[in-house]
């Protein structure tokens, strides 16, 4: 691909310093890149790689403590690092637009959507009120929002995450910018919404004359969108090239490691052994949330979980897949005894668990334990790891010293050092904390372990480690695992059976190969079709790359 025109954005040898005392001197060092018109450049990397900081620097939105110390960022021929704040503000929103990761909080809750879009025109153009309004309605239509007239007067909290992200995109597009920067814009969205937003980016590339800088951690998204790819690690560019090159023929060991960590799209375990006994049976579990009618509002009923039956065989893994609002979380809470189901029963082996009394539900926790999604919020920051680990066991009557012994042994199993017992959660990384959470769950020797989006917040390489650890432990101690996830790839990688939920209902159940290879329900087919990067399968990294010889 050759470009005759000058690039829209050209970053030359950019170095951004970190405050002194950090783990490295530069957030970004010696970075160079070009983005041309009608081109999507993806920056890929794990958390802390400097990919977001690069995009913020171009927008002039860096936090005050981060200062570019060398290099230049040329936008339309001008070095934006040399602009005053007011000059940069004139470019932002008009010549360059940005879309952020978290659509739920990216809009001001106090103003209508229409007001927040029109503000861009107020800031950058001389237009009459009627003209601003007409342009805003046209934009709402362009980002494919239904009923623009109504949405114009809506407040952000009345919209879904996907709709809010479209509003943010509309804001970024309002003045037809030449550069569009998107920082993980689909990471917080469900897979079907993500597919729609990614489609929109592809259309924009053609319809607008903008260069697009797309920051992501997800190789599937890269495969779906990118013309060119730039891989970053710890502030350095380790590899740069066309999407085709980087995805299918990565040369740098770090890129190869990242791509190798992407879970495979098909089942890897083969057909599960159906002869093992049933570990967990769920019979007709049902939960309806209702608010009673009060003086001021009518009664409301939400079927969070419609009558659900399934079984999990001993020593196997059941993957439960579904989008937000599908009822996964409520189902898990019922299984954990955190929520009392309205109907139905839970059986462990041949004994039925008491669901109606608090004491009975407490009993659940000897048998079923859970690892939660957020490794940062799940551990009390003011308690030592040792205390956190033994609490559950001591609660069920194990003597303290014996529990400590056990904690020590479990830390070894989750591959952490013994001295971790005397340290606090803040001293561990996300992946390490998730290992601690796993150890904590195993302390009471549960028969069943539930992992609720347990790897969603982790970087792909760390995710791979934790998944492998879970699977090793499952094999070693004969644990039965229920793995809740929105990520179909992860589900395929770790599960024996898959259960697909939608709107509180189980719509499909089967082995991984059946569900992924021959989906029966339209919702499952829709989910699979929405997976980004379907044309690409991560290449096998066992074969030596072409550049290894040259290295």
């Amino acid at each position: 691909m050759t470009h005759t025109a000058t690039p829209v954005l050209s970053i030359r040898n950019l170095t951004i310093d970190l405050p002194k005392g950090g783990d490295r001197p530069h957030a970004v060092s010696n970075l160079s890149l070009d983005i041309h018109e009608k081109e999507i450049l993806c920056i890929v990397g794990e958390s802390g790689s400097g990919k977001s900081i690069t995009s913020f620097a171009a927008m002039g939105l860096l936090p005050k403590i981060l200062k570019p110390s060398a290099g230049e960022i040329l936008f339309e021929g001008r070095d934006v690092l040399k602009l005053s704040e007011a000059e940069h503000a004139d470019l932002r929103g008009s010549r360059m637009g940005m879309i952020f990761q978290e659509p739920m909080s990216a809009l001001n809750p106090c103003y209508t959507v229409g007001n927040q879009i029109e503000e861009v025109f107020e800031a950058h153009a001389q237009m009459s009120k009627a003209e601003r309004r007409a342009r805003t309605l046209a934009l709402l239509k362009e980002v494919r929002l239904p009923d623009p007239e109504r949405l114009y007067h809506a407040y952000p909290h009345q919209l879904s995450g996907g709709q809010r992200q479209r509003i943010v995109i509309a804001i970024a597009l309002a003045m037809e910018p030449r550069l569009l920067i998107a920082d993980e814009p689909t990471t917080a969205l469900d897979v079907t919404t993500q597919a729609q937003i990614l489609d929109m980016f592809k259309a924009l590339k053609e319809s607008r004359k903008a260069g697009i800088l797309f920051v992501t951690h997800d190789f599937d998204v890269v495969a779906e969108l990118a013309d060119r790819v730039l891989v970053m690690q710890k502030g350095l560019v380790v590899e740069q090239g066309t999407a085709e090159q980087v995805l299918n023929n990565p040369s740098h060991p770090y890129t190869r490691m990242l791509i190798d960590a992407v879970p495979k799209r098909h089942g890897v375990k083969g057909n599960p052994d159906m002869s093992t006994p049933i570990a967990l049976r769920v019979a007709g579990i049902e939960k309806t949330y209702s608010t009673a009618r009060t003086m001021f509002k009518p009664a409301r009923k939400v079927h969070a979980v419609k009558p659900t039956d399934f079984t999990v065989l001993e020593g196997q893994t059941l993957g439960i897949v579904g989008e937000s609002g599908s009822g996964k979380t409520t189902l898990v809470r019922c299984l954990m005894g955190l929520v009392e189901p309205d109907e139905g029963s839970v059986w462990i082996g041949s004994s039925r668990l008491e669901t109606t009394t608090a004491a009975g539900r407490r009993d659940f926790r000897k048998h079923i334990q859970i690892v939660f999604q957020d490794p940062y919020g799940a551990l009390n920051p003011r308690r030592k790891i040792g205390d956190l680990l033994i609490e559950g066991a001591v609660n069920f009557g194990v003597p303290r010293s014996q529990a400590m012994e056990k904690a020590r042994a479990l830390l070894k199993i989750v591959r952490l050092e013994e001295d971790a017992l005397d340290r606090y959660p803040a001293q561990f990384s996300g992946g390490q904390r998730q290992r601690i959470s796993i150890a904590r769950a195993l302390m009471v020797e549960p028969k069943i372990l539930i992992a609720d989006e347990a790897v969603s917040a982790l970087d792909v390489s760390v995710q791979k480690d934790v998944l492998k650890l879970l699977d090793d432990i499952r094999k070693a101690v004969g644990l039965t695992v229920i793995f809740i996830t929105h990520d179909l790839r992860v589900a395929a990688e770790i599960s024996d059976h898959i259960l697909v939920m939608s709107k509180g209902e189980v719509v499909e159940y089967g082995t991984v190969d059946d569900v992924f290879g021959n989906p029966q329900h339209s919702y499952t087919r829709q989910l699979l079709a929405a997976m980004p990067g379907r044309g690409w399968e991560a290449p096998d990294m066992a074969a030596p790359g072409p550049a290894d010889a040259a290295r």
Partner: protein
Amino acid sequence: MLKFVLTKIGMAALVALTVSFISFILLFMAGDPAIAIAGEGASGEVIAAIRSQYGFDRPLLVQYVDWLMRALSGDFGMSYYFKAPVSGMIAERLPVTMTIGFLGMSFALLLAIPMGVLAAAFPNTLIDRLALGIAVVGQAIPSFWFGLILIVVFSVNLGWVPASGTRQWTGYVLPMIVLGYYATPAIMRLTRAGMLEVLSADYIRTARAKGIKPRRVLFKHALRNAIIPVVSLAAVQLGFMFGGSVVVETIFALHGAGYLAWESISRNDLPTMQALILIFAMFYIAFTFLADVLNAWLDPRLRTV
């Protein structure tokens, strides 16, 4: 929004009714009013006579309903001590208290909110330190001491304003400053904390990415979100100023409702106390209602009931 306001009015009315009942009952629990009226060493017959004369021998609920009905028509009975209609006394005293209350709150808001915004916009600078200093001093100085200093400096030495009385409007200046300065620190610090939090919010970054100028980001996008808790706090403080301005009224010899409350409590003047408690409570309820409505106007998420 209309439904929200109507609901809130309904709830406020219910709260007011409950408060009136509780305040009525509480005063009876504080001691037998007949004995208090009769005075020390009165004989049993005198007390019994007073009891039936004032109607204290009727069931409590009957007395309450009777009192409430008359209170609603503006009749709070006769003061035992002043031997004058309570409503007349209150009508005379309340305007003074309301004036210094509103003036004091305006002074506090006009001082505290700009200081809080500036302190948050330039954290850890000289401006921030100065605002913090003003707040700390305000929190540390007792009102009566601060009032006395102001009198010494501005009335006695400089002779700019009178030290007491309300015959001239200038008589309100010092009470306003004393009362307002007392409320300033909490409002300033809440504004600063709210602004700091809001300024790091994602939607502020979005506003900056739109190319909105810093001042507009600060006042349009940040302040409206940060001010919401301040509104609630100011409502409570204003209620407090109405009921608790006794100290200020005493220092500046203003005959306001706060001073009247203090007099009636020390003389065990039941009808006056009941009337004032009810009126102060009604102010609290009214201010809370207004704060709720104002907040709902500021933030649409609060409009659901």
